[in-house]
C-alpha cells in the first residue's frame, strides 16, 4: 500500500506536468519522424539516362514517373558530373545499370522501381548488372537502425525524466522527509519503478506503434516481443537514471550525464557499424545496456528472431536493471541508516 501511495503520487504529479508528458510521449515521435524523412526521403524525381533503349522501354519508364534522358554517348564521368540518379545502358545481351548512389535511399528506390518496370523483359532476355558510383548495395540506412532507434528513445527519455524527477525529490528534501516515515527503502524504489514504469510503458507502446504502423519501419518479428524488449530497456534506464541522480547536485549536472552515459551507448549499440573497429574497442559495447537492447530489437524487427533467440539479451538486460535497482536501495542508506 505504501508502494501504491508513491505510485499514485507520481501519477498525480506527472499528469499535472503536461510539458514533461508531452516530452515523454511526443518528442520521440517527432525525432523519429524527422529521421524517417531524412533517411527515407520519399521517392524524389528520379532522372535516368538511357543508352540504346527501345522506344517501348522508354515509354514504360516514363509511364513509371522516371525522368528519362536519351543519350547514347554517355560515361560514368558524365553521370558524376551531371548528378543524374542512374544510367541504364542496353547492350546486346545484358542490361547495365549504374547508380550514382549519393543518397542510398534514392538509389535503392530507383533500383527497385526499375526492376519492377523491366521485370518482363529482364527475366526473358537479359541480365541486369548493377554498378554503383558511390558505396555499394548494402547502404540501406533507416531500415536497419530504426529498430535500435525505438530502444534508444525509450532509454533516453526515461533516463532523463526519472533522473530529474528523483533529483528534485532529493534536492527539495522530500526524499529525506519520506525516509522519516516507516517506509522501507525498497518500497520507495519499487514505487518509483512502478510509477514511472507505467509512463515508460505508455511511451514505449506509443513509440513502437507509431514506428511500425505510421512510419512503416520494418518489423518481421512479433510486435509483442518488441514491446517486451523496450519495457525491459525502460526498466534499465529508470533504475540507472534514479541511481545517477544521486551523483548530481542539480538538473544541470544531470544533463551532463548525457554525453557520458547516453552518447557512447549510441556509438557502440550498432547504429553505426562496428565491424571495422578494433576488437578490444568493439568489446566496450558489451558493457552497455543499449548494445543488448539494439541486438535484440534488430533481431526481432529486422531478422524476425523468436523469443528464445533473444532470451540471452533479455536476461542480460534484466540483470542490468536488477543491479541498478539494488544499488538504488543501498544508496538510500545515505539518508537513513535503517
Amino acid at each position, binding site marked *: 500500500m505504501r508502494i501504491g501511495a508513491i505510485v499514485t503520487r507520481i501519477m498525480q504529479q506527472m499528469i499535472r506536468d503536461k510539458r514533461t508528458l508531452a516530452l515523454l510521449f511526443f518528442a520521440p515521435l517527432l525525432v523519429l519522424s524527422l529521421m524517417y524523412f531524412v533517411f527515407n526521403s520519399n521517392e524524389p524525381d528520379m532522372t535516368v539516362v538511357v543508352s540504346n533503349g527501345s522506344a517501348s522501354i522508354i515509354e514504360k519508364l516514363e509511364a513509371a514517373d522516371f525522368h528519362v534522358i536519351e543519350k547514347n554517348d554517355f560515361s560514368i564521368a558524365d553521370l558524376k558530373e551531371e548528378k543524374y540518379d542512374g544510367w541504364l545502358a542496353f547492350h546486346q545481351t545484358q542490361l547495365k545499370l549504374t547508380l550514382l548512389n549519393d543518397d542510398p535511399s534514392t538509389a535503392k528506390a530507383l533500383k527497385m522501381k526499375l526492376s519492377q518496370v523491366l521485370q518482363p523483359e529482364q527475366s526473358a532476355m537479359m541480365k541486369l548488372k548493377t554498378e554503383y558510383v558511390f558505396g555499394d548495395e548494402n547502404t540501406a540506412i533507416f531500415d536497419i537502425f530504426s529498430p535500435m532507434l525505438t530502444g534508444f528513445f525509450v532509454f533516453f527519455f526515461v533516463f532523463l525524466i526519472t533522473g530529474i524527477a528523483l533529483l528534485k525529490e532529493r534536492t*527539495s528534501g522530500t526524499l529525506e522527509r519520506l525516509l522519516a516515515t*516507516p517506509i522501507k527503502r525498497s518500497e520507495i524504489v519499487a514505487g518509483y519503478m512502478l510509477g514511472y514504469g507505467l509512463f515508460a510503458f505508455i511511451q514505449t507502446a506509443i513509440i513502437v506503434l507509431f514506428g511500425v504502423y505510421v512510419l512503416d519501419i520494418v518489423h518481421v518479428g512479433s510486435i509483442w516481443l518488441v514491446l517486451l524488449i523496450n519495457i525491459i530497456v525502460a526498466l534499465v534506464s529508470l533504475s540507472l537514471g534514479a541511481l545517477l541522480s544521486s551523483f548530481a547536485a542539480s538538473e544541470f549536472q544531470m544533463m551532463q550525464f548525457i554525453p557520458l552515459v547516453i552518447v557512447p551507448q549510441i556509438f557502440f549499440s550498432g547504429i553505426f557499424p562496428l565491424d571495422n573497429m578494433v576488437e578490444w574497442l568493439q568489446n566496450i559495447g558489451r558493457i552497455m545496456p543499449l548494445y543488448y537492447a539494439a541486438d535484440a530489437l534488430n533481431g526481432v524487427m529486422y531478422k524476425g528472431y523468436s523469443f528464445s533467440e533473444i532470451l540471452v539479451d533479455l536476461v542480460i538486460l534484466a540483470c542490468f536493471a536488477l543491479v541498478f535497482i539494488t544499488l538504488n536501495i543501498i544508496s538510500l542508506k545515505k539518508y537513513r541508516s535503517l
Partner: protein
Amino acid sequence: MGNNAISLNSIEKKFQQKQVIAPLSLEIPKGELIGLLGPSGCGKTTLIKMIMGMIKPDNGSIQVLNYTVPHKQLLTDIGYMAQSDALYLDLTGEENLHFFAKLYRLSKKEREERVNYAASLVHLTDDLNRKVLNYSGGMKRRLSLAIALIQNPKLLILDEPTVGIDPVLKKEIWQELIRLKNDEHKTILVTTHAMDEAERCDQLAMLRNGHIIAHGTPHDLKAHYQAKDFDEVFLKAGGEAL
C-alpha cells in the same frame, strides 16, 4: 529510563574532522514540551536527525520511547517537521496530507479524519484543494506541521516550526502544542532561536558548538544567570562556556 521519552548517552558526531556534536548527554522526560535553543549552525538539526535515526552518532547511544535508535517502530511514533518544507509543490495540500497518511498505513476512514483534523488545526481547510505551489511561506510551514501530526504520533519533533509564520498564527500553534501536551500527553521537542518561544517550554536545553551549555526550566535558567530575558541568558551562558 522508563519515564524518559528521549535519552542521549554521551553521543558524539563529527563531519569531516569538524566536531558537530561534542559528547553530550540529555534526558527528556515524557509528556513535556522541551525547547532546544541555539544559534544557527550549533548542531540542533544534527541532534534531531540523530534522535530520528537518520544520522548515526559516531559514539554513544540513543534511546527514544524505550527503543534503541534506529528502530522502525519509532518512525511511526515520531511526528517530524523538517526545517525546510519538504512538500510536493505540484500536488494540492490535501494530496500531500493523504500521501503521507498512506505511508503510515492509516485506513481510509482514519485518513479522512486525520487529514481533516490536521488541516483544521493549522487553518488550511479552505486551501486544501489548492496546489502547494501557490501557498505562501507560512502556509507551507503550516502544512508541514499538519503532516507531522497526521499519524497521531506520541512524540513530536519540530525543527523551527514557526519560522515565517505571522504572530497570530504562531500564538495559535503554540496554544495547540501546549494543548497536545496537556490533553494528549504528547512529548514535544521544538528547536527554535526565537527567545519568546523559549519562555513557553517546560524545559530548555541550550546548545552551542555541539555542547549543551545550559539545561533547566525557563525560570531556573533566568534565576541562575540573573537575567531579565532569554537573550540575556543566552549571551551569559554562551560567554561562560566559551
